């Protein structure tokens, strides 16, 4: 091998991989990430972790308080609800609903929004007009009311909720991605691809998409919180995940009468879970936004 000396001093391939070191962990939000990972693991191993069946209760054990209160037992660590179902088990299985709905709905919205945003921004002309007017119309609709309307039509089920949230929230992606594509389209490397004979589709797939995927990921993490809240709201309003399936929003809804007579554990625990998860997702999203910002990223 006769490689000139100056080449030998170049960073090797291994160093250039986006290692954790390169991302400079200094500001990495450890607590939110831990919470999210924990919730994900809990959702994954719900069957092994839950001490009771979340959908079957015993009516002899209704409204048991958490174990540290008078009347509580270690059998039901966080108490039981109006049907005698274990609150902890329901929270554990509810994590599964929130995780699945949160991530897949964000992914569905992301795919639709990114696709339409790229088409709109790159093709321009009437395609752009049609997609952007559609987006304007969509944004003018109150999102929650629209989601309620849709779920009233297609009926409640977890996967219907995913699709409903997906087609409610794609507009945010489409707007942002279109804006990015408009500036990317004028970049020299896109023009070079044009004069090199690449078709529009090749350019959109190979040169535009990889350059906007960062933004899509950032919007996605920030959207997870919004989507989980909406899922909980829909479940609370009775048009979300159908009972007896345990969802955090549904648990809030079921527990609201109990709140008046002091059964606070029925609402406080699912509420805390929702808050923790949304807060963690948002903090992680903020961090990613800064990390992936092309201005701050070292390229």
């Amino acid at each position, binding site marked *: 091998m006769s*490689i*000139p000396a100056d*080449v030998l001093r*170049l*960073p090797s*391939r291994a160093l*250039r991989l986006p290692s954790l070191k390169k991302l400079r962990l200094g500001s990495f939000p450890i607590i939110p990430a831990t919470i999210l990972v924990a919730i994900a693991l809990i959702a994954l191993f719900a069957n092994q972790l839950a001490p009771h069946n979340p959908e079957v209760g015993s009516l002899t054990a209704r409204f048991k308080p958490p174990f540290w209160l008078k009347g509580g037992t270690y059998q039901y660590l966080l108490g039981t609800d109006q049907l005698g179902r274990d609150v902890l088990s329901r929270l554990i299985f509810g994590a599964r609903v929130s995780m699945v709905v949160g991530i897949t709905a964000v992914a569905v919205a992301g795919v639709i929004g990114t696709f339409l945003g790229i088409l709109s921004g790159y093709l*321009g*002309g009437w395609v752009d007009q049609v997609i952007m007017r559609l987006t304007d119309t969509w944004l003018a609709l109150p999102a929650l009311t629209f989601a309620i309307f849709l779920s009233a039509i297609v009926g409640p089920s977890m996967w219907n909720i995913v699709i409903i949230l997906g087609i409610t929230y794609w507009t945010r992606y489409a707007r942002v991605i279109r804006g990015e594509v408009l500036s990317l389209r004028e*970049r*020299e*490397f896109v*023009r*070079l*691809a*044009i*004069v*090199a*004979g*690449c*078709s529009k589709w*090749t350019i959109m797939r*190979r*040169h535009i998409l*990889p*350059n906007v995927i960062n933004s899509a990921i950032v919007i996605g993490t920030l959207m997870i919180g919004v989507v989980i809240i909406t899922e909980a709201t829909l479940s609370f309003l009775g048009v979300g995940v159908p009972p007896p399936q345990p969802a955090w929003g549904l648990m809030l809804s079921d527990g609201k009468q109990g709140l008046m007579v002091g059964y606070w554990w029925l609402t406080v625990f699912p509420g805390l879970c929702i808050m923790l998860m949304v807060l963690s997702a948002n903090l992680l999203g903020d961090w990613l936004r800064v990390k992936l910002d092309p201005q701050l990223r070292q*390229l």
Partner: protein
Amino acid sequence: MMAEAALLELDRLSTHYVSAQGTRVVRAVDEVSLRVHAGETLGIVGESGSGKSTLALTLLRVLPPAARIVSGRMMFEGEDLVTKTDEEMESIRGKRMAMVLQDPMASLNPLFTIGNQVAEPLRVHEGTPKAKAWERARELLKAVRIPSPEARVRQYPHEMSGGMRQRIVGAIGISCEPRLLIADEPTTSLDLTIQAQYLNLLRDLQKQHNLALIFITHNLGIVAKMCDQLAVMYAGRLVEFGPVSRIFNAPAHPYTRALLSSIPRMTEADQRLTAIEGQPPDLSSLPPGCSFAARCPQAMPQCREAAPPVFEPEAGRTARCWLADPYATAAAPRAVVGAA
């Protein structure tokens, strides 16, 4: 040279920009006729806004939406490119006719490796399998004198110097062995030593592949060094066309003469730089006569009345100027030349 058919022949080609309401028409390229043979280098010079870049975009048919090719023919290897469909043009672009853009520094996608980008035209046009295209990419990098191409193909654009990126863009240009390479001000963003290197490289590549080069520039020094033929554009029109040496020695059009005399010279250090007085005309409302008449030191009354047609002052040269009219009364133009 004249015997063989030209690789590219433009015949009264016009490209106009039309405003949205259709009320304003900008004649960016107006009735341009010229020829380029294989292995030949054509320099296109002119002021900013004279239609040089629009002409290049017209050749590749990558015009912005507002621009139309309104008339004329572009014969390339015996086929008229004006009548081709967009799909047919996609298979010509990058394969038989390639282009190096004005700012090669920004012409590489920051997210892909060099090898990936050099291999792209091969994979798009010839469906070359990945491993073979990368092998070829390494050869191309070697051809454009990138040291240790084996290591470089796996690196990203930001790890390269400006001159290297420039040469890589050149490698992408020649990757499918095109017959014609269009370089739109390829050296404006480079410093002088790298400019010279790059120009030498282009010349070597041209010799090896019998490539025809079209050089768009406003640097007449580069034209003198690189080009065989010269096309001078003014206000969208081709005012003079012919072999470089003959045009430099005896320009037929006053605009060419003015351009040549505005080159700063070492020998006349005590003189002020010669500038061409006035501004180029608005391309959407051209005067009825010659578009250069208002700035021309030798303008005659007839120049303001009728636009000069294309004259052929000698074989292989054309000029759009009444002074080049062989049938003009000998007295009138001579008198003007004498006075000037």
